[in-house]
C-alpha cells in the first residue's frame, strides 16, 4: 500500500508540475502576440541572447569542428577514405552538433541568468511592483525573452555552423595536409540545404525551450536566496534535458520516413 501511495504521489506531482508549466507556456505565448509589446526590453534581450552569446557559441563551434575532423581522420584513414571527412564535418555540424551544442551552451548562459534575474525579482517583490504599476510581468519580462530566444538561436546556430565547418577545414588543411580547394569542394558537395534548415528549426525550438525554462523557474521561485539558487539549477538542467529530448523528437520528424 505504501509503495502504491508513493508511486501515486510521484505521478500526481509530475502531472501537476507539467500542467503548471503548460499553462505558463500558453499564457506566455499569448502575451507574445497581444499588444503592447515592450520594444525596449525586447531589444535588450535580442542583444543579450544573440550578440553576447557569440563568443561562447563560437568557441564551442570551432573546437567541435576541429575535433570532429581529427577524430574522423583517425577512423577513416584506416579505410583510406579521407575525402569523407569533409562530409562528416559538414553533415554532423549542420544537422546535429551546431544546434545541440549551441543550445546547451546558451542554456547554461541565458537560462541560468534569466532564472536568477526573474527569481530575484520575485523574492524582492519586484514582480508584484510591476503589477501595481499596471504592467503585466508576463508581458514585460517573459514575452520579450521568449521572442528573443526564438529569433536569436537560429542566427547563433547559423554562425556556429559556419565556424564549426571552418574549424574542420583548419585541421584538415593545416594539420592533416589536405588540399584546400578539394576540401572545400567536398564540403560543398556534401552540404544540403535541408540539413541546414532542419538544424535552424531545431534551434528555434531550443531557443524557446531555454527561455521558457529560465522564465518559468524564475517566475515560480520561492523562499529567498536558496529558492533562486534552486530555480537557476532547475532552469539549466530541465532546459538541457528537454533540448536533448526534443532533438530526438525533431530528428525523428524530419528524417525518419
Amino acid at each position, binding site marked *: 500500500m505504501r509503495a502504491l501511495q508513493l508511486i501515486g504521489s510521484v505521478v500526481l506531482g509530475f502531472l501537476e508540475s507539467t500542467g503548471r508549466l503548460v499553462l505558463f507556456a500558453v499564457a506566455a505565448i499569448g502575451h507574445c502576440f497581444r499588444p*503592447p509589446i*515592450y520594444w525596449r526590453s525586447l531589444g535588450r534581450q535580442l542583444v543579450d541572447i544573440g550578440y553576447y552569446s557569440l563568443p561562447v557559441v563560437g568557441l564551442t563551434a570551432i573546437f567541435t569542428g576541429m575535433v570532429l575532423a581529427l577524430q574522423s581522420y583517425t577512423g577513416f584513414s584506416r579505410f583510406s577514405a579521407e575525402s569523407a571527412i569533409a562530409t562528416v564535418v559538414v553533415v554532423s555540424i549542420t544537422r546535429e552538433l551546431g544546434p545541440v551544442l549551441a543550445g546547451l551552451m546558451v542554456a547554461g548562459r541565458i537560462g541560468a541568468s534569466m532564472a536568477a*534575474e526573474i527569481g530575484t*525579482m520575485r523574492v*524582492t*517583490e*519586484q514582480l*508584484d*511592483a*510591476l*503589477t*501595481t*504599476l*499596471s*504592467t*503585466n510581468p508576463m508581458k*514585460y519580462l517573459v514575452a520579450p525573452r521568449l521572442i528573443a530566444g526564438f529569433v536569436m538561436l537560429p542566427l547563433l546556430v547559423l554562425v556556429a555552423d559556419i565556424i564549426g565547418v571552418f574549424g574542420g577545414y583548419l585541421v584538415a588543411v593545416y594539420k592533416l595536409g589536405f588540399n584546400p580547394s578539394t576540401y572545400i569542394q567536398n564540403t560543398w558537395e556534401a552540404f544540403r540545404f535541408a540539413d541546414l534548415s532542419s538544424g535552424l528549426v531545431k534551434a528555434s525550438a531550443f531557443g524557446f525551450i531555454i527561455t521558457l525554462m529560465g522564465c518559468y523557474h524564475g517566475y515560480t521561485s520561492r523562499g529567498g536566496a536558496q529558492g533562486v539558487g534552486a530555480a537557476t539549477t532547475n532552469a539549466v538542467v530541465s532546459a538541457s534535458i528537454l533540448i536533448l529530448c526534443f532533438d530526438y523528437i525533431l530528428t525523428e520528424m524530419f528524417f525518419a520516413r
Partner: protein
Amino acid sequence: MTEKSPVKIAIRGLRKAFGVKVVLDGLDLDIAEGESVVVIGGSGTGKSVLLKCILGLLRPDRGSIRVDGEEMVGASSARREEVNRKFGMLFQGAALFDSLTVWENVAFGLMAGKGMDRARAREIALSKLVQVGLGGDVAAMHPAELSGGMQKRVALARAIATDPEIVFFDEPTTGLDPIMADVINTLIIETTRDVGATALSITHDMASARKIAHRIAMLHQGKIIWAGPVADITRSGDERVDQFIHGRADGPIQMAVRA
C-alpha cells in the same frame, strides 16, 4: 475622517487560507475617500496578505472587496489592470527595479502603464523626486547605489508618480532609523493626506501609526478586532489593543515563543 465621505474601499467577510493555516478569517473594513487608515497587528497576522488581496496579487478564498463600488474579487484581469491604475504601492523592501535608473523607476508607471513618452515622464519623475527631497544628481544612479532610506524615498516617489487615488504602504518605516522613519512619515502625509488621496498602511510601528493615521484598525487572528479614530486608541477598552500599543509580552495575546 468625516462620516460623509463616500467609501473608497469596502471589504466584507474576507477570508484567505494557506493550506490549513487560516490567515484572514472574515475580515471587514471600510476606508473612506481621503482617509488614511493604518492597520496594526503583530508580525505574521496577515497584514501583508490583506494588502495583496486588495491589490489582486493574491486571490481571496471568500468575501468581497469593492473599490469605488466595483467588486474586485473574481474581476477579469483586464478590469483588474484598469482598477490598479488607481493604486500606488510602497513596498516594504522598496522593490525598486535594479536594472533601471532611479528616474526610470519613478517614471515606470507613467511610461509602461500610461504610455507617456520618455522626455515628459522624466520631467514628472524629477519633480516627484524633488517632492520626496531627492535632487537631480540621484536621478541617473541605480537603486543599488542608494542607502536604504533613499531607496524608500525613491519607492515613495514611484508610488505617487501617477497621482494615484489610493496609496498603500507596507511597513513604510521598518528598517529605518527613528529620524529617517519620521522623515518618511512626514513625506507620506505630504504626498497623500495633503493632496486628498486615500491611504492604507500596515505597520507595527506605533509612532508611525499615530502620526500618519486618521483611523487605526487592529488586525488579530484574521479579524479587525478594533477600529477607531487615532485619538481613541488609548481608550479602546480592548486588552489586546492595549497590550499591542504598549508593547507588553504579557497579556491576552500570547506569542508562540517556545512552540
